[in-house]
Structure formats: structure tokens, C-alpha cells
């Protein structure tokens, strides 16, 4: 008797077995590719694509004097300044917390890991309150003490102020990037130096530093890329008022006029700025990848299975601890405390007996109303939940294709999904905003512009590179035979995913979902860019409160936001025990960039 079961063509077999994950992967990638192509396309269109025409005007305008004399220099200063500040803190921190016997090292490392969860714009608000020319508390104290009439320091309206805050915010990524290679240096290399008779400091300079240099360089390039594509911190510190324009703010105000800079839409110009921002980032990514290759070579040379030698600082321990604590104070405690103080004051003033008597919760009373009511809370919850669920889902699907199938395009998929990591989030937000406008003209039934959905899409694209890194390593650890035997047992791919693989990688999925939710909660660049009257989220509302001058209420909002995040984090950590808690703990201590190539 011949065969009973009908044959399936080979192509069809791939289609049935892997169609699902493959389809979802290409859905994400198609959106990414389309949006990038769209940014480029916009630079050749006179205004909106609804009107016909082709122009090179936007590109020739790049040579405009304003851009070359103000915007680009400012952007470069901000980028390099950020690198200097971040490196100043991160390099000693990495050495202190990884290669010395400093007490409380793990606690400090975890604390540095939590810094990225605190919204950068909130820290910027704190620093403005500390160092503003007019209201800055530190400035006022200094002026009082020194008897100066004018105030000495300012973070506002100078690129160096932006660099200061950005540097504090971006110290953790460099810290974790350097920590990796620093832990992997073979102690014997250093011991040889010791035998030759070099002093400790010389050893550090001559042997340790050259070995971690690739990691340091990688971190610096990454920081530059990130720094120049952040909008909200420069905006608060002077770009919004037009005094210190940077590329990120140029894009923003070209598409969302109303600031003092531009009164009209300049979509094409925004596309050009986006491309200008993307190019250094891509160049940076290229060097970064090269650097990573080198780092791997070092790993191969040194191998594993040893503990790096740790220096005992002895009595100098206190200086080390002092340095770590001063970073944490500057980056977290001081700005948050001043915000807490400001939120309890009707008008910001120096702490004094008189001020204490004015303490009140009046800012909190009007907070919900000021933020925009329950709708904003609802939007935020929807955003955070959708993004964290969808990012976990799509990352799982993409990584499935990359790690667990032999589809020929899997390498390409793995590379493409990393692209949003190199392209500034503003470029994607810009493309999405444009699409939203077009959709509202052509496809009125498609709610895109001004909805929470468009922000969800932007956040998903932005978080996919990290999500797939986490899922790649999680899925890579599941032995392929565990999956194969399930197929032999008569179940198809979707069942195998649901019943076998997903439960096995659950800790990683939960960790990814939690971390994604945190970062989505605090993200403001894209949410602001895509905001309309109906889709404000918490971070955007706080930002706008600040911009409209309600400093007290904005401070109260910021305090509420940070409090919510801490509460959620503790709740999740205490509910999810076992491997998930461990993973979240480790993930918090080694946030995104530590794993992102």
C-alpha cells in the first residue's frame, strides 16, 4: 500500500513549521526598513508627499550659516563634553568596583545599574533647580557665601551644561561596557608587570589600561551616539528657548513648530537633520563593532577560569568609597532631593527655618489635574503594558528564527534588527510622525497620528535590538534536542513554543518585559515627538508642565513618577522569586548596553 499521508512540498514544510515566527520577524523588519527609507525620501520632497515635486533644496540648505556656525558646533560640544564627563566618572568607578576590594561593591554596582531607570529629564530638572542662574540653589548658596552679586555657575543655555547632565546620565553604560573587559584581563599579564618591578600605578597605566582600551573606546563611541540623539535634556537646558540649538532639537522643532526657532513646518529639513544624526551614529556603530571584535580577541587570548587580581586600597578605601558615593549623590540623590524639596514648596527657595514653615502638599493636590487627569495615567499604563508585551513577543519570534531555525535569511534578520540601535530614536519618531500625518490625510480610518498606538510602535522599534539580544542568549541556552524531541513526539512548532520553549526561557522573558516596561515608562523623546492632545503619557505631561513654568507641580510629578517606579520595581522583585528575581537583579546591575553589541 502506498503512502497514506499526502506529501508536503519542501518549501511548504518551511512555511508550516517556521512561517509564524518568520512572518512576525519580517513584519518588524519591514517597518524598520520602511521607516528608514521614508526618512531619506522625505529629504527630497518639497513639503509633504501629498504635494508633488522633487527638490534638492533641503540638502543644499545644510550649508546654511546657522547650521554650520551654531547647530553642528553645539552638537559636537555636547557629544564630546558628555564623553568627557561620563568617562571621568565611569572609568574610575569601573576600576574601583571591579578590581579593588572596596566594601559594598555589589550594592554600589546595583545602584549604578538602577540609574538608567530614572528619567534623564527629571535629573535635568533637578540640576536646573540646583544650578540655574536665577533660581539655582547651589548658586544662591555660593553667592551668599562669597558675597557675589551675580551668580557664578549655570547649566542652562550652555552646551557644557547639557554635557554635564548627559554625562551623569550616561555614566552607567560606559561603566558596564568597561567592566566587562576589565574583569577579563588575565591577572598573569599584570603579575608579569609586577615581577618586572613596575609600581601599581605604572601597572595600571602601562598594562591594565591598554588592555581595556578597546572596551573604553567602544563605550565612548556609544555614549557619543546616544548623547547627540537625546532631545529632552538639551531642550530643557536651553535648546527649547533657541539659545543653544542642537541637531536633535532642530529635528523636533522642524516638525513641531511653535518653539521660538521655527514658526513653520520644515519636514524636509528635519529629514536631513535626521540623516545627519544617523550618519555619525552608523560610523560610530561600525567602530564599535570593530572594537568588539578586538575585545573578543583579547578574551580568546586570556581564556577563562581565573579571578582577576584585586587591589587592596587599604586606608585609601575611604577615598574610593567617597568617589562612588559622590557620583551617586550627583547623579541621583542631589537632583531627586531638590525636586522633592521643590515639590513641597509653593515657590522654590533655599532651605531655612522660614522655608520649613511653608512646607505643604499643595503641589500634589493639583498634580493629577495638572498632569491631565486619569486619561494620562490610563495612556501610560496602556503604553507600558503594550510595549513590554509586544517587545517580548516580537523578540521571542525574531530570536526563534535567528537561533532555532536554519532559514537562510536568519543572519540578515539578526543584523537588520540591530539597526534601530544605531539610528537615533528621533529619526524613527520623525518618520512615524510623518506617516501619521499622511495617514490622517489619505487613510482617515487608520488612527495613527496623535494616538497612543503610534508611540507604542516607536517604542517597540527602539527596544527590539535589546530585546532580541536578551532572547538570543536565552534561546541559545536551550538545547536543541529539547525542542526536537517534542517534534518527534508529534507536536508542531506553535505547541512546542508554547509548552516547551517558552516555559524554559520564562525568567528571561519576564526580565525583558519588566526592564522594557521601566524604560518605556521613562522614555520621553519619542513620546513627546509623537504627542497630540489625546495621547499624553506621564513623562510627557511632566515635561510640558515644566515647560509651561509650573515648576512646583512638575517637581511633584517627577517625585511621583520616581516613587511609582521604585515601588513597582520592589513589588516585582519580591513577587517574582527565584531565577527571575536573580535575572532582574543581574539585569538591573548590567543594563542594556552591557549586552548590546
Amino acid at each position, binding site marked *: 500500500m502506498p503512502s497514506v499521508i499526502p*506529501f*508536503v512540498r519542501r518549501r511548504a514544510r518551511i512555511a508550516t*513549521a517556521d512561517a509564524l515566527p518568520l512572518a512576525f520577524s519580517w513584519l518588524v523588519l519591514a517597518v524598520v526598513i520602511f521607516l528608514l527609507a521614508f526618512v531619506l525620501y522625505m529629504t527630497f520632497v518639497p513639503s509633504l508627499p501629498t504635494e508633488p515635486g522633487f527638490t534638492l533644496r533641503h540638502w543644499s540648505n545644510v550649508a546654511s550659516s546657522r547650521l554650520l556656525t551654531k547647530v553642528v558646533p553645539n552638537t559636537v560640544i555636547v557629544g564630546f563634553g558628555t564623553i568627557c564627563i561620563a568617562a571621568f566618572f565611569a572609568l574610575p568607578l569601573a576600576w574601583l568596583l571591579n578590581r579593588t576590594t572596596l566594601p559594598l561593591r555589589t550594592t554600589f554596582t546595583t545602584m549604578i545599574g538602577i540609574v538608567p531607570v530614572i528619567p534623564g529629564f527629571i535629573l535635568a530638572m533637578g540640576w536646573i533647580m540646583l544650578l540655574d542662574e536665577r533660581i539655582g540653589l547651589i548658586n544662591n548658596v555660593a553667592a551668599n557665601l562669597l558675597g557675589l552679586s551675580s551668580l557664578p555657575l549655570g547649566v542652562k543655555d550652555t552646551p557644557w551644561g547639557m554635557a554635564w547632565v548627559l554625562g551623569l546620565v550616561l555614566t552607567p553604560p560606559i561603566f558596564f561596557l568597561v567592566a566587562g573587559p576589565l574583569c577579563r584581563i588575565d591577572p598573569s599579564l599584570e603579575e608579569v608587570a609586577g615581577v618586572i618591578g613596575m609600581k601599581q600605578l605604572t601597572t595600571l597605566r602601562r598594562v591594565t589600561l591598554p588592555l581595556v582600551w578597546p572596551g573604553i573606546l567602544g563605550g565612548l563611541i556609544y555614549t557619543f551616539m546616544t548623547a547627540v540623539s537625546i532631545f529632552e535634556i538639551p531642550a530643557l537646558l536651553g535648546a527649547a528657548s533657541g539659545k543653544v540649538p542642537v541637531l536633535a532639537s532642530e529635528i523636533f522643532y522642524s516638525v513641531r513648530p511653535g518653539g521660538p526657532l521655527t514658526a513653520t513646518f520644515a519636514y524636509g529639513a528635519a529629514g536631513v537633520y535626521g540623516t545627519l544624526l544617523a550618519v555619525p551614529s552608523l560610523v560610530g556603530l561600525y567602530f564599535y563593532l570593530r572594537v568588539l571584535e578586538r575585545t573578543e580577541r583579547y578574551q580568546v587570548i586570556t581564556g577563562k577560569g581565573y579571578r582577576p587580581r584585586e587591589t587592596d586600597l587599604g586606608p585609601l578605601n575611604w577615598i574610593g568609597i567617597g568617589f562612588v558615593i559622590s557620583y551617586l549623590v550627583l547623579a541621583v540623590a542631589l537632583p531627586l532631593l531638590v525636586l522633592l524639596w521643590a515639590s513641597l514648596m509653593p515657590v522654590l527657595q533655599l532651605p531655612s527655618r522660614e522655608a520649613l514653615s511653608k512646607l505643604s502638599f499643595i503641589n500634589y493636590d493639583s498634580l493629577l489635574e495638572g498632569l491631565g487627569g486619569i486619561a494620562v495615567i490610563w495612556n501610560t499604563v496602556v503604553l507600558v503594558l503594550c510595549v513590554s508585551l509586544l517587545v517580548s513577543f516580537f523578540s521571542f519570534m525574531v530570536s526563534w528564527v535567528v537561533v532555532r531555525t536554519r532559514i537562510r535569511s536568519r543572519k540578515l534578520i539578526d543584523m537588520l534588527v540591530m539597526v534601530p540601535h544605531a539610528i537615533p530614536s528621533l529619526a524613527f519618531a520623525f518618520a512615524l510622525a510623518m506617516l501619521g500625518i499622511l495617514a490622517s490625510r489619505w487613510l482617515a480610518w487608520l488612527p495613527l497620528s496623535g494616538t497612543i498606538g503610534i508611540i507604542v510602535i516607536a517604542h517597540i522599534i527602539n527596544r527590539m535590538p535589546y530585546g532580541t539580544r536578551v532572547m538570543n542568549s536565552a534561546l541559545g541556552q536551550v538545547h536543541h*534536542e529539547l525542542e526536537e*524531541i517534542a*517534534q*518527534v*513526539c508529534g507536536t*508542531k512548532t506553535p505547541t512546542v513554543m508554547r509548552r516547551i520553549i517558552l516555559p524554559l526561557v520564562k525568567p528571561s522573558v519576564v526580565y525583558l518585559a519588566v526592564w522594557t516596561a521601566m524604560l518605556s515608562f521613562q522614555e520621553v523623546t519619542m513620546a513627546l515627538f509623537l504627542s497630540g492632545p489625546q495621547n499624553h503619557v506621564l513623562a510627557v505631561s511632566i515635561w510640558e508642565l515644566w515647560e509651561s513654568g509650573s515648576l512646583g507641580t512638575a517637581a511633584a510629578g517627577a517625585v511621583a513618577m520616581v516613587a511609582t517606579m521604585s515601588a513597582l520595581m520592589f513589588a516585582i522583585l519580591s513577587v517574582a522569586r527565584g531565577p527571575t528575581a536573580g535575572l532582574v537583579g543581574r539585569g538591573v546591575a548590567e543594563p542594556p548596553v552591557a549586552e548590546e553589541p
Partner: protein
Amino acid sequence: MIRVTNLRKQFVTKHGALAAVRGVAFEVKEGEIFMLLGPSGCGKTTTLRCIAGLEAPDEGEIWIGEQLVFADRGQKIVPVYKRGVGMVFQSYAIWPHLTVFENVAYPLVYGIFKAPKSEVRERVAKTLRLVGMERLEDRPAPLLSGGQQQRVALARALVYEPKVLLLDEPLSNLDAKLRAEMRVELRALMKRLNITAVYVTHDQEEALVLSDRIAVMHGGEIKQIGSPRDIYVRPENDVVAGFIGTANLLPASISTVPGNAREGLVSTPIGALVCSLPPSAAVGQAVTIMFRPEDVLVSVSGIGQSRNTFAGIVEQAVFVGSRFQCVISVNGLKIECELPKSQVVESGQNVAVEIPCHAIHLLP
């Protein structure tokens, strides 16, 4: 029950193409235990995975039962989950997030072997009893010992009563004693259930004990198929002879072919040997002669007049419990032999070595 013809599989890696399986063909009858035996890397696992459908061959045809599951370079292919075979991996692949019961019940709860809910518990319990694991139903999988994992893996492969069982070195992770016990137990179980099995191993003892028929593989090809006794006693080539048991292999050439008698003379580096020759033998033909260590007779009383006897010196004698394993140097060539434990020899001793005529095999 299983038929494989001209199976070919190439792996393309960064370092170029690697032909893992090169034209393998065999047939397994119903209820037979068929052994794929060969050194590491010879393509056994790849062949087995092709049968299961986990690997798509480049060429060949595979039949399971009445059904053609692979043909025409993959134009016709039945996906893994529809092939209805049972499989046990070397790593056992027990799902660590499930208990013993859940592991074994999985095929009955999801997929194409789904059974009515009411039957599941009973069938799982029956299968677990079969493999002697009935009291450990609720044990989480990570807490099982190696032997227990192996039993669970077997139970999971048997619970949906497949006609064909594929086993990839299922005993190689166990310690020697347990392995010896399990061999006998496994064979009895498969015979009781009348299962057709393809069993992969690189352990020749396992192959000899467990199988009905053995295919010796080497470098992606099958070198010989036959019963365990056939393979051991009448190896067809030096690869098979060298792999199964220990063998003394000597290059030789035929020097005398007698007219009617079947016994002729071959010249070897240790001297002329009398042995039986095939009808096709011709003078001057180069051959390899093979004889097993246990067939060699060693005496200390000096050379008698018997045939095929040579003087030698004991180079090494190792007592392994049941017998002595010796290396004896004859005319400068090392011959391996086994002596009963009652016959004590020491290294350096002069002995007479006889290679009985019936123990000598000619290999092409």
C-alpha cells in the same frame, strides 16, 4: 519496516562542505533491533536524525513502514511530527520544567498522538511501570539520576506506542555496571513489545549483546551488515575486523594454492602460515590475514611439531581478572593474545605461539 536507500547528507560549514553520510542503505525488518555501530564522527547520529526527519538528507529515500517519508531530494518529505516514531537522545532531553509524569504524558496531551483525557493517566502509569519508574511520577525532572532520566526518556518514547523506536547512544551516560544491566533489560523490553528499533552506539560490546543485526559504519559509509556473530567471526574487511573486538592484522601474500585441498600457504612477516583459501585465491595475491587474540594458543614447553607455530618472547602480560592479555613478539612483530588465568606468564619469557588454521581469516 524501515528502508533507507542511498542516503547522502552533506553539512556546509564555514570551513567547507563535509560529507557526513555517503550513500548509506539498509533495511530493518519488523521487530528487529538494528544497530548502527562505528567510531565517533562516522555519521551514525546523522543517519538516525535523517530517519526521524530532524535532518533533511541531500539524496536518498526513506521508508517507514508502508510510508515513503523522504524522496526526490526533499521534494517529498513528511515532517517530523507526522512520522510517528519514538526517539531517545543521548542527552535524554528530559524537559526540566516538567515532572516525570508531565514529561511522559506530553505526547498524549498535545499533538497528533493525543489521547482522550481519561486514558492519559492510565497509559502513562502503565508505561512508567514498564520501565520501572512507577513511584517517581511526581518527581521534578532535574532531580532524577542518570539512569532514571534514561528510563523516563524511554517511557516518553514508548507511551504513544510507536512502531519504530530510534535510539541514539541511550546508555552512554550511565556507569559501566548500570549499562550492562540496562542492555539486557532494554533488549528484553523491546522484544516483549515487538518494537522495530534502530539503535546507534559506538560501544561494540553493547552492539553484540543487544542487536539482531549490526551495520558497521566508517567515514559515512556502511562497511558490513550482518548478525553479531557474523560480524565478529567473519569480518569482511580490515575496518570491521579492527573495530569489533581486538584483531591481529598481518599483511600477507598467497604463496601456494593447492590443487584440490582448500588449505594453502600464505607468507607473512612472521613466517609461512597454513590456512584455508577461498576458491578465487591466486598465487601472488596480496591479502590481509586476521586472527583474534583469544584464538592464539601459547605454550611454554617449547616448539613442537604442530603447524603454524612460532617462537616468541612475552613483551607484556597484563592480568585483567578473568584472563591475561599479552603482547608477544614474534619475529619482531607484536601479536596480541589472551591466556586463561591459570596459565601464568611473565614478560621476557620464551614461549611457543600457535595460530590455529581455522582461526585465520583472509581479508581482501
